[in-house]
């Protein structure tokens, strides 16, 4: 399949269509106090650094939400016929994500393979400061697409 055709398949449909080589994003937003605090509340991260009492930073695990932002742009129809589950989170944190930073994140599908009848997709992502392109987090995400029965993982 030609690159242009593959891109057409992956964009505008489901994440179950994602194919090796697909480029995702970039997406851009400002890391607001609300994002850092609210994500902290939802995950019981009540530490002063996330709640804005100290030098406010965002939980680095928010890079997982950036994956969902990329999916939403590239595959707005959602997961597809069955649920998608998260299998592995792997983040290298290069520096703190300070509240107020303009963020630019992009990703690339680096592998898609089948194991035990399930389709795995690995996406490599980079979260950078948009102003000067500083690398904040490099992230590798592994999901199982079109999940059905015999659960082994547990998230999106």
């Amino acid at each position, binding site marked *: 399949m030609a690159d242009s055709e593959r891109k057409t398949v992956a964009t505008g449909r489901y994440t179950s269509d994602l194919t090796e080589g697909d480029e995702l994003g970039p997406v851009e937003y400002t890391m607001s106090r609300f994002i850092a605090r*609210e994500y902290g509340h939802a995950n019981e991260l009540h530490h002063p650094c996330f709640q804005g009492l100290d030098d406010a930073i965002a939980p680095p*695990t928010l890079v997982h939400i950036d994956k969902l932002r990329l999916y939403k742009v590239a595959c707005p129809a959602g997961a597809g016929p069955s649920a998608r589950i998260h299998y592995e989170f792997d983040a290298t944190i290069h*520096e703190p994500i300070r509240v107020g930073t303009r963020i630019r994140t992009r990703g690339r599908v680096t592998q898609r393979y089948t194991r035990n009848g399930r389709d795995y997709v690995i996406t490599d992502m980079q979260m950078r400061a948009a102003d000067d392109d500083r690398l904040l987090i490099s992230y590798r995400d592994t999901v199982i697409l079109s*999940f059905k029965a015999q659960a082994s993982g547990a998230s999106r």
Partner: protein
Amino acid sequence: MNARTSRAMLAPGHELRAPPRPMTRERMRWYVDIQDTVQADTGRIVTQPPTIHDDDDYARKNGLPGIIADGMISTNWILGLLVDAFGPEAAGRGRLRTKYIAPVYEDQVIIACARVRNAVRDAAGVSVYELDVWCEDDAGKKVTVGEAVVHSTSR
């Protein structure tokens, strides 16, 4: 020797454990609701269509006995344990890898854990810890496994 280099380090084998927490329906829903809420960034909660984490019927249609937790909750509880132990530096530099090896069902009691595998002090006096991290249930069954690297100037 100054204060930065003389402070005691956690030795290999030292274990950190968070208090047990039941994976309630509410905790699962919090992670569902947070996803679109932080993307919208309006200050209001933004909900999303049914998921396997908050809708039993949808979960059953996907072959599950009921809702299961998003793995990122486990990852965040491990992050919280590391920040408890090492302070904000644990969230500002290093690595966190987690793999979700078993589903977590409603009301299953989960404990976030970490064990120091290796600890060295670099030339600048920063302690660099390598840790095994995991979440287990109250029967000791591991549901999430992984590793972390933490850079610390406090211990």
